[in-house]
């Protein structure tokens, strides 16, 4: 990047869900956040804190009500080629093969033939799915399907990768493996990543910063700097600082959830 001006910026961002005839629900309350190019930022928080909403606002999938959402200094008006999303439900097209799914974004842009094949092959290999090009999603495990989702997002070469609890539907072992793979893949070109998750250890393992959001309405409660060295391998999970950071985030989250339950009791 030529300068350090933020890749993504929220200024006093407000989002409401309206209900006809009733009061509207405040989902995000004056969010202020700046994400630098090449930064890996996680959004974590209890259900209802608006982290997925924030992600969809960055991608231009849903509108916002007040304040600014800027990507590369320009207001977000809709999806764009510099951003790509990885979905929790994988969102693969079941009638297409792995290769055809990975090629989807390229196809939409008119990139076909040998040029597309070369890109598709490169990313299929990168996510470790070589040999499965002609399989259909129903023939793959959850972890493999998400690798396809990741390859599809990377294939369009976005500057910003948006990941919406991508490993949430997977078992713990697969999750750990994919976290390590994602970290390795990210190290290669260090895109800007916004990563929504429920899991504290996942956030600490992957991120440069972890943004903790509090629910109802969604607000930034705390931003934690992850001062762990990179690249990070499996051994980092037992690093004392890793444990300390994970514990701290959990303490904050636990406090929020307990308080929530006390209020509703």
């Amino acid at each position, binding site marked *: 990047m030529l300068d350090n001006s933020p890749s993504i910026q929220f200024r006093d961002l407000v989002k409401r869900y309206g209900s006809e005839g009733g009061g509207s629900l405040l989902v995000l309350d004056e969010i202020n956040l700046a994400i630098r190019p090449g930064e890996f930022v996680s959004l974590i928080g209890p259900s209802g804190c608006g982290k997925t909403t924030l992600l969809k606002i960055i*991608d231009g*999938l849903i509108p916002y009500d007040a304040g600014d959402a800027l990507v590369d200094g320009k207001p977000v008006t809709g*999806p*764009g*080629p510099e*951003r*790509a*999303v990885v*979905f929790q*439900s994988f*969102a693969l*097209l*079941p*009638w297409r093969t792995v290769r055809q799914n990975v090629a*989807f*974004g390229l*196809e*939409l*842009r008119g990139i076909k033939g040998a040029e597309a094949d070369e890109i598709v092959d490169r990313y299929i290999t990168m996510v470790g799915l070589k040999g499965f090009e002609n399989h*259909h999603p*129903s*023939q793959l495990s959850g972890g493999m399907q998400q690798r396809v989702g990741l390859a599809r997002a990377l294939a*369009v070469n976005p500057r910003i990768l948006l990941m919406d609890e991508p490993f949430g539907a997977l078992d713990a072992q697969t999750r750990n493996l994919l976290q390590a793979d994602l970290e390795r893949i990210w190290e290669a070109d260090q895109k800007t990543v916004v990563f929504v998750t429920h899991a504290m250890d996942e956030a600490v393992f992957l991120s440069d910063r972890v943004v903790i959001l509090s629910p109802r309405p969604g607000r930034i409660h705390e931003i934690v700097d992850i001062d762990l060295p990179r690249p990070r391998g499996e051994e980092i999970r037992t690093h004392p600082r890793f444990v300390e950071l994970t514990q701290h985030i959990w303490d904050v989250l636990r406090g929020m959830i307990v308080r929530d339950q006390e209020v509703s009791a």
Partner: protein
Amino acid sequence: MATASGFSQSTDWKARYLPLLLPLGLLAVIIAAWQAIGDDSASIALPTFMRTVRSFYELIVSGELPLAFFRSNIALFWGYLLALAVAIPLGIAMGSADTVRKLVNPYLMILISMPLITVLPILQLIFGLGLMTRVVVVFIFAIVYIALNTCVGVRSVPVDLQEMSRSFCASRRQQLFKVVLPHAFPAIMAGARLGLGRGIVGMVIAELFLMSEGLGSLLSFYMTRFDTGAVLAIALTMVLEGVVVISLARRVEAALTRRP
């Protein structure tokens, strides 16, 4: 001799041939009963199986049945083709836009629940005594399920797939052809099959209740001559056609919608 699964050879034999023998056996019983009950002596009694077969043979050899069959099925062919050409785009429009769906739905509901026979005289007044009316009848019978199933297929696209394609900047047209229609394809095929069945019913009704140059008029002709064997042979031809066409349509549908 024991097979790999441990079953004896005789059980394998039963499993392989029984599904074929049972229906054939039942059919043989029905035909035998028919032959026994039938009475060829009186002209207004139920003709025997053999008498019907003989009439069938005679009608084919004389060329009357094939010609009538062809003439009747022209109406099915054009009516069904027209129904597909109109109902599939209509179903897509209904599935894509709520206002369209709410506008059109009541009329489709009427078409489903109304005894369409009552409309036939009106259609004959409007479209005349010829092929056109029979084509319109087939059309009206066929469009309902084609349109409804297409609409359901289009509306059932999972939200995450729609979001995903939007996030990759797919235009509305790209979304339609690359996500919506492939997803809706099995539903459209099912609707096409159901519509074909209804279209055949429409063809037969048009044959029996309207002026026709095909099977209907042939049937009327032999009815006035009290040739019950011929009458039954013609009626069964229509029934058989329906059975064969539907089962073929089922196979085509299954083959086209097979997913790995």
